[in-house]
């Protein structure tokens, strides 16, 4: 199956671990990702915060590229996904484009399709038995449903379904779509600390040993800030933050998993060794 791929800017930089795991895992499921030729930044929070028209035109250029490529486009970054969908909805509202047939997919939704989960199930060589994880979806793949077209935006279950296929132990908790503070990471890190420490505490209360995320902003805020928050609150948090594609790679026995995990600030390898998974 061949689809277009819109990686977004962070996957070329700070989320290179996410990008590498996606590139490694998708071919194992028979999915071929073809990067959209000459894509541009979606404008992210900056554009929609201070220039609405810009926040429409930047992703609209990418939509035009996707339509030219005549394939559905898969997006690993939650915010890019949201901005592309928002531009698509605005085009429909302005009646510039009507039902063009190119679908914008969030990567998790795409990979959690029944047919792909069935392939995944057959290919698991290292079941992630005993790994207690909370799925953390964050905001932008779910909200607002009028943009994302999600059926279950308050309690999405795709991560849990996928983790079960990997034979990990997804735990129930009420914070899976709560905000990590996202784009305030640099301008108001103190706000991130409040929001993220709340997530740590709730994940621990649920019995989790790690987070599984689908968004590189969530990953950055939960992972990069963990040392700082521990110091600030005199706590000793140890909650590795996996991309779901990294855990897929681990369960599929991909040889490069350690290289991706070594790029995290909170090193997940001690946890995995402890669980006999590495």
């Amino acid at each position, binding site marked *: 199956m061949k689809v277009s791929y819109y990686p977004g800017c962070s996957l070329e*930089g*700070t989320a290179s671990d996410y990008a590498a795991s996606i590139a490694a895992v998708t071919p194992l499921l028979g999915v071929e990702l073809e990067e959209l030729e000459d894509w*541009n930044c979606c404008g992210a929070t900056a554009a929609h915060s*201070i220039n609405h028209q810009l926040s429409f035109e930047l992703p609209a250029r990418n939509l035009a590229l996707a339509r030219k490529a005549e394939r559905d486009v898969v997006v690993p970054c939650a915010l890019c996904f949201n901005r592309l969908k928002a531009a698509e909805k605005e085009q429909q509202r302005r009646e510039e484009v009507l039902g063009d047939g190119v679908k914008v997919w969030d990567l998790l939704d795409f990979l959690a399709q029944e047919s792909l989960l069935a392939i995944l199930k057959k290919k698991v060589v290292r079941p992630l038995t005993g790994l207690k994880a909370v799925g953390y979806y964050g905001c932008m793949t779910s909200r*607002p449903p009028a943009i994302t077209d999600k059926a279950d935006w308050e309690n999405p279950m795709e991560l849990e379904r996928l983790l079960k296929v990997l034979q990990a132990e997804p735990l129930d908790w009420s914070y899976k779509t709560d905000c990590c503070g996202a784009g305030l990471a*640099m*301008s108001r890190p103190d706000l991130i600390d409040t929001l993220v420490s709340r997530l740590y505490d709730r994940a621990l209360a649920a019995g989790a040993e790690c987070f599984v995320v689908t968004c590189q902003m969530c990953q950055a805020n939960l992972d990069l800030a963990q040392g700082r928050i521990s110091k600030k609150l005199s706590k000793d948090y140890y909650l590795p933050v996996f991309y779901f594609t990294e855990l897929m790679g681990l369960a599929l026995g991909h040889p490069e998993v350690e290289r991706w995990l070594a790029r995290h600030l909170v090193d997940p390898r001690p946890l995995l060794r402890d669980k006999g998974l590495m």
Partner: protein
Amino acid sequence: MEINVNQPLVPSFSLQERLAGEMATPLSSCYQCKKCSAGCPLTFAMDLLPDRVIRLALMGQTEALLGCRTIWVCAACVTCSTRCPNAIDIAGVMDWLKEEALRQGKAIDQPEVAAFHRFFLDSLRAGGRLSEVALMRRFTLFNLWRHPQIGELWENMKLGLGLFRRGRLRLGGPPAIKGRDEIKKIFQRTGVKH
């Protein structure tokens, strides 16, 4: 932001009419259930709760809204708009107010947040893709110039080094895309200032 209850409030419909026209969001259907504020994760950092922003917008209190903190500490998680039973796009109103405050040259309550957005857009204006490194560098210098805190700078440098060592910083930034002239035109057309 304090609202002086002893001063008579002069309502005006101009703001809600503009919002209804430009954003197609029906502010007047708000029945003050406060679901937006109940679900907002950032209320602890706000001077006006989200429901108050809508209330004040209905009453045309533009000055109070353009100068408030709330619009800048909103993380755009869109929980408010999602849960509003009357389909009011509260998060969209926050964005609209930020844009309007900048357009009118108002004093911004959170200049760091506004500067971050501006630097972000500057960084992709030339080549079409964001350079995370250029953004981090420029924002760190901006912050240092505003209130020099050696501890904070040290923490940021340690973080930057940690990312660099792990191969997560692309020092040269992304190469310019072929369609960079289209991007420049988009920026010119939409009137984004440097």
